[in-house]
């Protein structure tokens, strides 16, 4: 029997699913990500967090994605805590505590479409403090932010700044993203920030941005698999329910084969994402390469299934009122987060990338958790 087992089952998945189900057809108001305490998930216990694993955070991502709900869980609960740990221990602890208890609403000021280490902001060291200059196109703006974490180019290397949102000001433009979330363009025009705003630079900043990007790619993968699972289940239910030419659509061989193909893609994607979590847990030397490979492969699977689901729903598939259509949009939107397939292929095929990103044999055994 074909199964749609969850990647990371458990209470966190159940509660996130319930929340998403309750809000699937209503606009989310307030700041549920912080109100529900999800930002504390991977924050270490000594900093007031839950100290849970990345797999636990993936449970929440999975629950939210299953109902097509758009919340920046990856950014607020995954990327931010990892980036903050690049700071000096006392600074990191203070801000992680604020994140865990929800007193600070920190968001990454990065283009959702790009890898986190592709900083578009330039930083210049002044006599007192720094000056930030640049533009970030298409940042997530779904939730209110009290502070932004801003990666920037500083003297030929990377640096990480923590800046009051008030200093940065209102977006230059705001948008609806293709899957219905909120996006914004933010401009930093010769913005002066104090010395202490730079919380990491050089290797510390670089490593933390790569680590956060890895987390983002992993969670993005979990999101994709969860959306695929829900998408296929909704498509199957639709084909079983609807009739055309006097018979159930699910009896048409061409539609059956397409669904079977979707299921194969989903299962392949699921296996790949589990493998990526194993590699992350094991600290594999070729993790970066594996994650890039996964992003390219998941993009293919997601695109195929999204298009197949729209086609299988016929005219209904063109309407946003249908949950399967919104899930298809989400899958397409996820493709373009943290680097699209063309960007990752470029890195994978670049001669120097192969050597730099390693090519070790992966661990193929064990469960995801």
């Amino acid at each position, binding site marked *: 029997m074909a199964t749609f087992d969850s990647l990371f089952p458990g209470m966190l998945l159940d509660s996130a699913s319930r929340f998403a189900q309750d809000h699937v057809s209503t606009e989310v108001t307030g700041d549920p990500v912080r109100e529900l305490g999800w930002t504390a998930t991977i924050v270490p216990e000594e900093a007031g967090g839950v100290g849970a694993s990345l797999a636990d955070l993936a449970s929440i991502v999975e629950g939210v994605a299953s109902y097509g709900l758009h919340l920046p869980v990856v950014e607020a609960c995954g990327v931010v805590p990892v980036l903050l740990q690049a700071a000096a221990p006392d600074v990191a602890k203070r801000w992680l505590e604020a994140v865990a208890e929800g007193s600070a609403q920190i968001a990454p000021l990065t283009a959702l479409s790009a890898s986190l280490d592709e900083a578009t902001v330039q930083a210049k060291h002044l006599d007192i403090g720094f000056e930030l200059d640049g533009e970030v196109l298409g940042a997530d703006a779904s939730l209110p932010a009290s502070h932004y974490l801003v990666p920037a180019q500083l003297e030929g290397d990377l640096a990480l700044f923590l800046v009051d949102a008030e200093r940065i000001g209102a977006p230059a433009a705001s948008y609806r993203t293709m899957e219905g979330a909120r996006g914004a363009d933010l401009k930093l025009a010769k913005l002066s920030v104090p010395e202490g705003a730079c919380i990491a630079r050089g290797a510390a900043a670089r490593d933390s941005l790569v680590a956060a990007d890895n987390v983002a790619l992993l969670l993005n993968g979990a999101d994709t698999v969860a959306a695929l699972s829900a998408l296929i289940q909704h498509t199957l239910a639709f084909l079983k329910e*609807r009739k*055309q030419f006097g018979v159930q659509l699910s009896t048409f061989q061409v539609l059956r084969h397409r669904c079977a193909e979707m299921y194969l893609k989903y299962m392949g994607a699921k296996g790949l994402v589990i493998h990526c979590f194993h590699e992350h847990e094991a600290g594999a030397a070729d993790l970066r390469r594996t994650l890039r490979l996964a992003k390219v492969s998941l993009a293919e699977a997601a695109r195929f299934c999204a298009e197949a689901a729209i*086609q299988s729903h*016929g005219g209904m598939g*063109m309407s946003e009122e249908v949950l399967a259509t919104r899930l298809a949009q989400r899958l397409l939107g996820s493709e*373009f987060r943290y680097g699209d397939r063309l960007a990752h292929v470029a890195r994978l095929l670049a001669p120097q990338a192969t050597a730099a990103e390693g090519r070790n044999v992966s661990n193929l055994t064990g469960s995801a958790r």
Partner: protein
Amino acid sequence: MSIDYAAFRRELEEFARKACPPEIRAVVAAGQKVTKREYQAWQKICNAKGWGAPSWPKEAGGTGWDIKQRLIFEEVMAESDCPPLYHHGLGHIGPVIIRFGTTEQKARLLPRILDGSDWYCQGYSEPGSGSDLASLQTSARREGDEYVINGQKIWTSHAHEANMIYMLVRTSKEPKKQDGISLLVVPMDTQGITVRPIKSIDGWHHLNEVFFDEVRVRADNLLGEEGKGWTCAKYLLERERLPPANVARLELVRRQVTRLVDEAAAAAGARRDFSTLRHKLLLCEADVKGARVLMANATDDMIHQRPLGVQPSVIKMICGECAQRLTTIALDAVGPQAAQRFLADAGEDVAEATWIQNYMFTRSRTIAGGTAEVQRNVVANELFGA
């Protein structure tokens, strides 16, 4: 007298260059959605020149052009970034009126299509009756010299801006569901018609549900015989499946996407690898060349009243899927920026996002007008003889 096709092409090129307003050409060149405003303006301009209906016979107000002239017209207009002529009136219901309409109906309805006064939408699909068109339930009962319509249509493109609808209705219940169907043309401002928008995945508003509650329409709006609407519908569908597959437009899109890929590749430098997209573009170029010949042959058959067979289905699939591949390439080229900046709150266009909208919209090319699955069944039935 033989036609000087080269001179004809030059005449068209000059007309397109001088007569089509730059603001309309800019919309087409950018791949943006062509709205009623542009369609209507361009229709009036072409009609004033006597070119309002390139595919209609002269006696109906058309140009009477031969097949080659019509293809040249399509190519030149596409090459010059002029919009297509709006298909629902000219390409769909117009030929049906010419073929099945009375003298009075031709005189009443055709000139208003030609000068752009009447803007039609198509009332075919119903909830539960998409590709299985014959299962439609919307009814029309005859009362004196009127029909009274009740029911619902769905996926009705442009119903919110059309002033006329041509629609299939059930006028009697027959054992064979294709029987008892009639074709009516109905003014959209008739009492009892309600239009409800459907929010579609491309972010544009073009789809609607249309509800009919005791809608009364004069009986002389019946096209063809009562109960024989299926014949008209089939005649119309054959023609519907060809114009959207317009090869000249496909070539226009191919050139637009090629330019887009070049620009995106130049901007990205070594950060993104475009070799796969360029490979796919080459295959599309080949597809368009092949489709051009198929389209010319089918149009020739249509003009000479030869049976079209499975050609409309074949061309619809080839062109529809090619259009999907082209907009998919465009999606890949612009996706990272445009996916996060899909629709601007401020209301202004997000140039790159237009290509995501086009990608989304083009999903309908294998759904509307008979799904790709239905078209493949048509071809398979022909191949297997059942």
